[in-house]
């Protein structure tokens, strides 16, 4: 952790694609036709588009796995085409679908490959590998000496990300890295990537065909059409609220409002207060707490103020103690999205999402009214601001 946390602000650099085209030999039609894009330093930019639209080719031109036929690519202020391809690639993290780990090498060996190519000394590499495995949530002691096949798909993917980050490159290219794992694992890997990004501030180019993933991860999204034409390049909020044309609208698909909920976090809305009792309170204290409010249920907290369950007023009437009538509770955090909160509201019979803040302490609840207000406000904001279409 020491290498990153010592730095502040983005460690990534800007990438510029300047009128870049790619024509494969033996083909008359270009696969990528005259694309210009500017990817700001320290942001996650997602290339999203239908299969075969050239989004992967566009990304692969950045580290010259695919040589551009014409045009210019700047990474930071260096011309990518002037750097030897192998050197260029060692300075750019690369992570692909199904991780691409080498099965005959241990996890330690896989992660340490790029530092090895850069001729770091053995000790420094070992220390870096331990640090990276920690960073992606794998215990080095337990996993470093295993082989890839002894890890689950999600774990392999984490190792893939660790390998990409090994030499601390300013730029990361990710080609559908979470495409081959199950939805639950994918979601947690996405959360993990966002957490990493707040620490690292890399410039990340992320390719996917899943618009939902693009909305969740992207600081900006480039919606690409045939031959990689940039149909719209903007923030997820702007694209959801105001698609540039029918093709983009079709790609955004139905459920744009739900996706907007997925973009907003519980910490961004005003929480409502709700009565709470402690699990070791006696029944009379609990009854009085509820009697003094307009509600017929209360949140039950443990001794450190963490919400653990809930009670109904009518059950409390004949109970001996609070614990015996408490019912299980799903808690959301202030970092959760409003979509998660909606899910909790629909799942709980008291129709509220109980929110735990810093230190998992109880801070309030989110109700359906809160959500409706939030969506209405967001829509009004997007309508008021003009949004950029196409390349900025």
């Amino acid at each position, binding site marked *: 952790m020491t290498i990153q946390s010592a730095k502040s602000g983005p460690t990534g650099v800007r990438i510029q694609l300047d009128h870049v085209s790619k024509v494969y030999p033996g083909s008359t039609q270009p696969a990528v036709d005259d694309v210009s894009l500017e990817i700001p330093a320290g942001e996650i930019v997602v290339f999203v588009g239908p299969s075969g639209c050239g989004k992967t080719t566009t990304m692969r031109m950045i*580290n010259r*796995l695919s040589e551009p036929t014409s045009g210019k690519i700047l990474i930071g202020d260096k011309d990518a085409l002037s750097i030897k391809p*192998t*050197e*260029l*690639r*060692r*300075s750019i993290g*690369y992570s*692909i*679908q*199904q991780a*691409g*780990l*080498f*099965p*005959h*090498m*241990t996890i330690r060996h896989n992660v340490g*490959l*790029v530092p090895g*190519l850069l001729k770091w000394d053995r000790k420094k590499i070992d220390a870096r590998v331990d640090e990276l495995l920690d960073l992606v949530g794998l215990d080095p002691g337990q996993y470093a000496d295993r*082989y*890839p*096949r002894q890890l689950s798909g999600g774990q392999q993917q984490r190792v893939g990300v660790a*390998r*990409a980050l090994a030499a601390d490159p300013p730029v990361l*290219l990710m080609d559908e890295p979470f495409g081959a794992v199950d939805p639950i694992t994918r979601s947690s890997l996405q959360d993990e990537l966002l957490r990493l990004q707040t620490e690292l501030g890399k410039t990340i180019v992320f390719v996917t065909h899943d618009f939902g993933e693009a909305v969740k991860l992207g600081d900006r999204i480039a919606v690409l059409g045939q031959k990689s034409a940039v149909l719209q390049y903007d923030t997820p909020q702007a694209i959801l609220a105001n698609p540039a044309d029918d093709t983009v609208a079709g790609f955004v698909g139905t459920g744009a409002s739900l996706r907007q909920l997925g973009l907003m976090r519980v910490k961004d809305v005003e929480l409502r207060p709700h009565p709470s009792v402690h699990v070791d309170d006696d029944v009379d204290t609990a009854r009085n707490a509820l009697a003094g409010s307009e509600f017929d249920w209360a949140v039950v907290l443990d001794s450190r103020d963490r919400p653990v369950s809930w009670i109904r007023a009518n059950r409390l009437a004949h109970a001996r103690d609070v614990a015996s009538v408490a019912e299980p509770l799903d808690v959301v955090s202030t970092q959760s999205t409003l979509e998660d909160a909606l899910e909790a509201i629909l799942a709980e019979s008291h129709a509220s999402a109980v929110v735990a803040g810093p230190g998992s302490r109880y801070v309030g609840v989110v109700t359906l009214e809160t959500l409706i207000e939030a969506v209405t406000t967001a829509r009004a904001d997007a309508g008021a601001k003009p949004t950029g279409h196409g390349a900025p």
Partner: protein
Amino acid sequence: MVGALWTYVTDHRLQLLFDSYQHVSAVVQSVLLATVIGVLVGVLTYRNRLAADLATATSSVILTVPSFALLGLLIPLFGLGVIPSVTALVLYSLLPIIRNTIVGLNAVDPALIDAARGIGMSRLDTLGRVELRLVWPSILSAVRLSTQMSMGVLAIAAYVKGPGLGNLIFAGLARVGSPTALPMALTGTLLIVVLALLLDAALVLLGRLTTSKGIR
């Protein structure tokens, strides 16, 4: 019968030990040479369909030539003795090794090659640190096959005055009727079989020691 065999072995144990050593040594060296040539040919041709097919076809044509004939054909080129014998063994060993190298290299997951290039490995790094490591078990199984085959073929090489246990068999067969004929031929044959099995066991052990646990 068994008694005659035993007497023969104990009377000639030094000669037998020497012939066995020569036999194994010739086979090991030939197969080693064939492995180097075969893997090299495989590496140079596997990315080009035509070249790969040509290499495989040529080596399989060589394998169809009867060993007796091949050895005879090599006499005008190399004369008699060790050189034509080793040449024949190397030629016969090429097919399995070339074919397994080519098939193996083409079967490596393209995503791994992409990952190797993507993290900045050179062509040679990719080949030496990824591709050949993954294909190694399949090359090794070709080496085992070639070794077994060569143990038998070298016996025939006694015909061109080659080294090894073949001389014993030829000499034995040449004096059919004399009391030592059968023990000679039988000893030579049995020793070849036993040595072939030992060599194979050694290669299996080598495979276990040199193949990564991750792909075993």
